[in-house]
C-alpha cells in the first residue's frame, strides 16, 4: 500500500447469497474508499447490506465480484486460509453482543487474540496505556460474568486492537448498552481514532452514534447512497 492510497478501496463490490433456489443480492455494486486513520459510520435500514459489507471487509466471507483491497491486499480470490490470516493481524472486530469467551478472564480474552496471531511475550507498554485509556486495567482478572456491559465492550475493544490491526470493524458496538455506557464506548472509539490513528468502520442504527464518526456512509438496498 503506497502513501495516500486508501486503506480500504472497494470498487463494484457485489455479493449474492444462494438461499435454497432464491438468489439474494446483498450488495449490488458498492464503491467505497476509506483513508487510513478515518472513522467512518455506516448507517442504513435492515437489509441494506451493511453487515454483508462488514463480513466481506473483515474476511469472514468472500465477495462474489468486484475489487476490494484492504491495507494493500486484494481480497478477491483469497482462499479461506488467506482470509483467516487477514483476520489475525489486519482486521479487528467489535460485536454488538461483546462476544467475550465466558471461560476466560478479561486478560485471557485479550491474550487469546494474541495467541491466535502468534504474538508472544508481555503486553507492550503502548497497549498497557490503551488499557488505562479504556479504563479496564483493574478489571483484567475478572471473567465476563463479573463485568458490566460497558466493561465487557471495552474489553472487546481491547481484544480487537491488541494485534494493532489496520482496521477496526465495530458492528453496532453500543446496541446492547445504555446511554451512559454507549457514550463512553463511542468516546473511547473516537479517542482511539484520534490518539492512535486507528481506522474504524462502525455499523450503527443510531444517528447520534453515527455522529461520532468523521464521515457517515448511508446504504440502502445493497448500494451506497
Amino acid at each position, binding site marked *: 500500500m503506497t502513501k495516500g492510497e486508501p486503506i480500504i478501496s472497494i470498487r463494484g463490490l457485489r455479493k449474492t447469497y444462494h438461499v435454497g433456489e432464491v438468489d439474494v443480492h446483498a450488495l449490488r455494486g458498492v464503491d467505497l474508499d476509506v483513508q487510513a486513520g478515518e472513522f467512518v459510520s455506516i448507517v442504513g435500514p435492515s437489509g441494506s447490506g451493511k453487515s454483508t459489507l462488514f*463480513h466481506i471487509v*473483515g474476511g*469472514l*466471507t468472500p465477495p462474489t465480484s468486484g475489487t476490494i483491497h484492504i491495507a494493500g491486499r486484494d481480497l478477491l480470490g483469497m482462499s479461506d*486460509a488467506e482470509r*483467516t*490470516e*487477514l*483476520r*489475525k*493481524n489486519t482486521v479487528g*472486530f467489535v*460485536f454488538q453482543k461483546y*462476544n*467475550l*469467551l*465466558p*471461560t*476466560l478472564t478479561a486478560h*485471557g480474552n485479550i*491474550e*487469546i*487474540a*494474541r*495467541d*491466535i*496471531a502468534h504474538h508472544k511475550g508481555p503486553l507492550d507498554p503502548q497497549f498497557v496505556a490503551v488499557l488505562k485509556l479504556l479504563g479496564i486495567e483493574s478489571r483484567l482478572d475478572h471473567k465476563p460474568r463479573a463485568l458490566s456491559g460497558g466493561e465487557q465492550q471495552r474489553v472487546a475493544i481491547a*481484544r480487537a486492537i491488541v494485534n494493532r490491526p489496520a482496521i477496526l470493524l465495530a458492528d453496532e458496538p453500543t446496541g446492547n448498552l445504555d446511554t451512559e455506557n454507549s457514550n463512553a464506548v463511542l468516546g473511547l472509539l473516537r479517542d482511539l481514532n484520534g490518539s492512535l490513528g486507528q481506522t474504524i468502520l462502525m455499523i450503527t442504527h443510531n444517528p447520534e452514534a453515527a455522529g461520532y464518526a468523521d464521515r457517515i456512509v448511508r446504504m440502502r438496498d445493497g448500494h451506497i447512497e
Partner: protein
Amino acid sequence: MTNKLVFENLKHRPVRTLLGVIAIAVQVTMVLTLVGLSEGMLNEQASRARGVGADILIRPPGGSIIVSGGQMDARFIPFIDKQPHVNVATGTLIFGTDLFNYLTGVDLATFDRLNGGFRFLHGGPFQRPDDVLVDEVYASQHKLHVGDTITNTNHKWRVSGIYEPGMLARMVVPLATLQDLTGNTGKVSTMYVKVDNPANIPGVIAELSDKLKTYKVYSMEDYTSLFSATNIPMLTDFIWVVVGVGVLVGFLVVFLSMYTAVLERTREIGVLKALGASPGYILNILLRETVLLAIAGSILGILLSYVTRFIIRDLVRSSLIQAIVPRWWLPAAGIAIVGALLGCLYPGLKAARQDAIEALAYD
C-alpha cells in the same frame, strides 16, 4: 494460552467433564480388571503348581493348560515310578464344577511322599472316602471349619482338614472317590514326578517323552511358564472383545460429550474464527480437551482397578484373584485415548468447518 482455554472449558461444565472422565475410567477399569483377573488367576494357579514340589509334570495331549477330567491312564504311574532317577510319581484328577471351582482328587500316600504332605492349620488328612481338605483361603471365604459339610458334584463332603494355601488346589478329595463319582475310574488329569537330583530332570524328561509318546512331559519351570492368557483358548479373544467394547464406550461417551459442547459453544467458535483462528486451531482445542479427559479418566481407571481388586478379594470374597498389572496401564490408557479421539473427530471437524458468520449469529 490454548492450554488455559482448554482447562477453563473443561472446568466450565464440571458435571459433563466429570461424567466423561468417569465413563472413560470405567472403560479402563474394565480392561485392567479383566486382564488382572486372568493374570491373577493364572499366576495363582502357576504358584500352586510350583507349590506341589514336583520336578516334572505330565499332561495329556492338547494345547490348553486348563484340564478337566481324566484323560490319562493311571496305570502309567507305577511304570513312571520305576524309571531311573525317579523318586516318586503320583497322579491327580481335576474335575471342574464351574468356570472357577474344581475338585482335585489325590492319592495322599504318594502325594505326601512327593512333598511332605499338606501343612495343616486345622484338622488332618482324609479319614473317610468322602472327606475333603480345603485351603485356608477357601475356608475363610466360605466360613468353613473342620467337621462342616459342603456339597460339590452332587455329593456331600466332610471337611477333615484345613491346610496352608499355595499348593495344588483349593479343595482336595480322595482320588478314588472322585474317579468313581465322575466316571473316571482309573484315570488321572495330571501326573507329578519327583526326581532324585535336579540335574537329572532333563534326562528323565527325555526318557519319559520317548516312552510315553503322546503325553506331554514338562519340567515344572517350563510348565509354569505356560500360564499366560495366550495359552488359554478364547481368553485372549475375550480380552480383545472387552477392549473393543471399552473403545466403543469411550468413543460414544466422548462423541456425545463433545457434540453437545460444540453445539453449546457455536458462538464461541464463531468468535475464535473472527479473531483469526484456523480450522486446525479450533480442532486442536477440542482434541486437547479430549486427550485431557482421557488422561484423567485413565488415571482414575487405574486407581479404580485397585478398588475392584479390594471388592473382589475382601468384599465379595470370591475365589477370583485379580492382579494389578502395571504393564497394561499404558496400553489401557492408550486404548482409552484412541477411543476418545475417534469420538471427538466428528464433532471436532464439525466445529472446525463451522461457518463463522452463522456461528456468530447463533443464539
